[in-house]
């Protein structure tokens, strides 16, 4: 037992930090420092830079282009990337589809999709949730009928983030409506978004952004060889995907970046005649967040390194529910800090105005974008299994109740 970072780990962090500093495009960094989400082109450009360096497929085995990092190294890499702040790797490609293909895909499927996923030549999205199937995923209804060498898919998905950017979508469909258990009639298909019958309708979120979509499938033909794993075994694939090592699920680096942004803003706003950063109460609130972020950081290293040791590929690690709950609580607490610092400047949707008037004002833009991320991250405790569901998981898996 040695609870300190090894010299190698410290050196690795330095290497990552330096590479990001030297290679992250300035316009991307500047927009994100103000609290804006990355644009599609920011994400594509940065993932390709990382891929050229051999880091994009950070969690994949070396044979498929992974860097062969330890769990601690992966963690360090993700944290530094978020703190930069730099665009996150497209998780649909890297942490979802990639491992699934590697585990269940045919050679042809791997050869065709993995390299393009790593380089973001294909933008993938996830077709799981349905209007009636949120936390209760297994109740999904989208149907796929086998017809010769292809499936015919009909149904609707919802909350499909970035579907409007996506080239491909991995979709859970019901191939056996009569299966004994709901989980047993489900298959996992890869759908080209350009296929006739696929319609994407935007969902505008409460921050005014277009991130989510509804996706409709109307007699969409999907070749049989676009099915992953056996027919009616899609639930195993989904469980593997959802349970797979959830490194970075806490997105702690994002919370740290938000606190840094709030502290920076607090230097420039007034509180009773002095800069807000001088206010003892504000400082204590930041201190409490530092405590909570540090606690989560250590838990995170413990979880991923234990996971690594256990070689628990695919088996859901119940402790990752702790990371999800505490991580999202922090994402919400830290963006709430930023919006409280913004004060009255959080009220107008400045960014829109400023773009319109093309009058750059970093403080107002940071206030407005920071408010947007506060609003958007109210969803953090909802997506990927609500925090209520996460506690149910802990209750059963850890406490055995």
């Amino acid at each position, binding site marked *: 037992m040695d609870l300190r970072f090894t010299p190698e780990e410290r050196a690795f962090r330095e290497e990552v930090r330096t590479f990001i500093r030297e290679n992250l495009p300035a316009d991307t960094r500047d927009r994100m420092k103000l609290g804006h989400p990355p644009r599609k082109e920011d994400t594509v450009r940065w993932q390709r830079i990382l891929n050229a360096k051999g880091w994009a497929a950070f969690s994949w085995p070396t044979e498929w282009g992974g860097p062969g990092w330890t769990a601690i190294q992966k963690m360090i890499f993700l944290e530094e990337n978020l703190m930069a702040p730099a665009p996150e790797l497209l998780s649909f490609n890297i942490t979802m589809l990639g491992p699934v293909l590697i585990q269940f895909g045919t050679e042809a499927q791997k050869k065709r999709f993995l390299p393009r996923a790593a380089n973001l030549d294909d933008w993938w999205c996830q077709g799981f949730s349905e209007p009636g199937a949120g936390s209760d995923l297994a109740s999904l209804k989208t149907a796929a009928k086998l017809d010769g060498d292809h499936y015919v898919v009909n149904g609707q998905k919802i909350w499909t983030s970035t579907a409007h950017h996506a080239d491909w979508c991995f979709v859970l469909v019901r191939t056996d409506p009569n299966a004994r258990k709901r989980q047993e009639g489900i298959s996992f298909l890869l759908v080209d978004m350009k296929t006739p019958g696929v319609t994407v309708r935007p969902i*505008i979120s409460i921050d005014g952004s277009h991130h*989510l979509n509804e996706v409709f499938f109307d007699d969409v033909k999907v070749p049989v060889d676009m099915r992953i794993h056996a027919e009616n075994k899609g639930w195993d694939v989904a469980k593997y995907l959802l349970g797979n090592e959830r490194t970075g699920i806490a997105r702690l680096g994002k919370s740290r970046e938000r606190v840094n942004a709030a502290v920076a803003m607090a230097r420039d706003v007034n509180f009773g005649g002095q800069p807000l950063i001088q206010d003892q109460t504000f400082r204590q609130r930041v201190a409490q967040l530092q405590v909570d972020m540090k606690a989560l950081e250590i838990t995170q290293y413990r979880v991923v390194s234990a996971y690594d040791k256990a070689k628990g590929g695919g088996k859901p690690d119940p402790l990752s529910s702790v990371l999800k709950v505490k991580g999202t609580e922090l994402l919400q607490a830290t963006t709430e800090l930023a919006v409280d610092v913004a004060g009255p400047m959080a009220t107008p949707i400045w960014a829109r105005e400023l773009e319109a008037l093309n009058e750059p004002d970093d403080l107002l833009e940071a206030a407005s974008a920071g408010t947007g991320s506060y609003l958007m991250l109210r969803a953090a405790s909802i997506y990927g299994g609500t925090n209520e569901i996460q506690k149910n998981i802990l209750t059963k898996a850890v406490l055995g109740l």
Partner: protein
Amino acid sequence: MDFEPSEDQRLLVESVTRMLGDTYGFAQRKTYMALPEGYSPAIWLQFAEQGLLGVPFAEEYGGFGGGAEDVMLVMQAFGRALVLEPYLSTVVLAGTALNVAGNLDQKAAILPAIAEGSLKMAFAHSERQARYDLTDVVTTATRNGSGWVLDGSKTVVSHGEAADKIVVSARTGGDRHDSDGITLFLVDASAAGVARRGYIGRDDTRAADIALANVPVSDADVLGEVGNGLPIIQRVVEAGIAATAGETVGAMEAMNEMTLEYSKTRVQFGNPIGSYQVVQHRLADMFMAQEQGRGMAMLATMSIDNPDDAARAHDIALAKVGIAQAGRYVSQSAVQMHGGIGMTEEYAVGHYFRRCMVIERLFGDPAYYLNRLAAEVA
């Protein structure tokens, strides 16, 4: 103490509620948002016909002669419907300024016009550098013959675009943070040198930045004593806090009803989510927050006419913190209990969430008032 609404108050609430029921469904509201004004001038006239625009004004000025309780009840109904119209800025803020400091001519000229719906107003006090400090004013008013000239800029003025007349604070003396030397002026929105840049707020309502360059104002348009505007501003802010507290109560009621209804209809794992104890207790907590918040709105309401300045400021601070925290808790919980649908623009709950978020930082936020209360601990 008597918490029962009077017969008149019951009738007032009934009529407002009926009208909003007919005219202010969430879908109808969307159409008002889409209008160039960002609200419905037609609805504004209906408010006038119902006498709502004169609630806090004396009958001699065409008012309803109502008290703070009446305003609270109206704002509660408006909070439930997420009313977009410039009621707060016109009737509550500017109205209070005139009630408190207006001379007979000013009242006679303005209050009846407000009450009949022909005059909309805004209250332009906040400046960017001030954040929440009421004394932090750098806009200047300089003597010019028999009148004054205003220079400076005001920020996030609620309904600044819609206003025909604007109550503007400016320094006639003293330095940036001084309590003395602030004076209020009645400025025509159309006056030379007034430039307004409007924008939409997170709460779907319009606000504006207002630039004042060499704006001429006559002596007759000085509101209250020259150099002694701060006490008026405080009364206006206190009235605003009480009114928005009532509005928050209405918003909490609406969110709690929506969430309760959703919990009965949304089925997951074979049962309505309202059948799960954790959801039930969250709803119980939301209900408790609503009721505790309602008490705080009552506290603000019963305080604004208290002649004891220190006691009034203390109670208003307590109320502002309590209602803001209740509103934040209920709106965050309402979104969480709704799940994905609560995060969407098409669904009402997110709009209530954002209105509460905006109200929380109108006239100062909880940290600001807790700080004030902490200073009194001894």
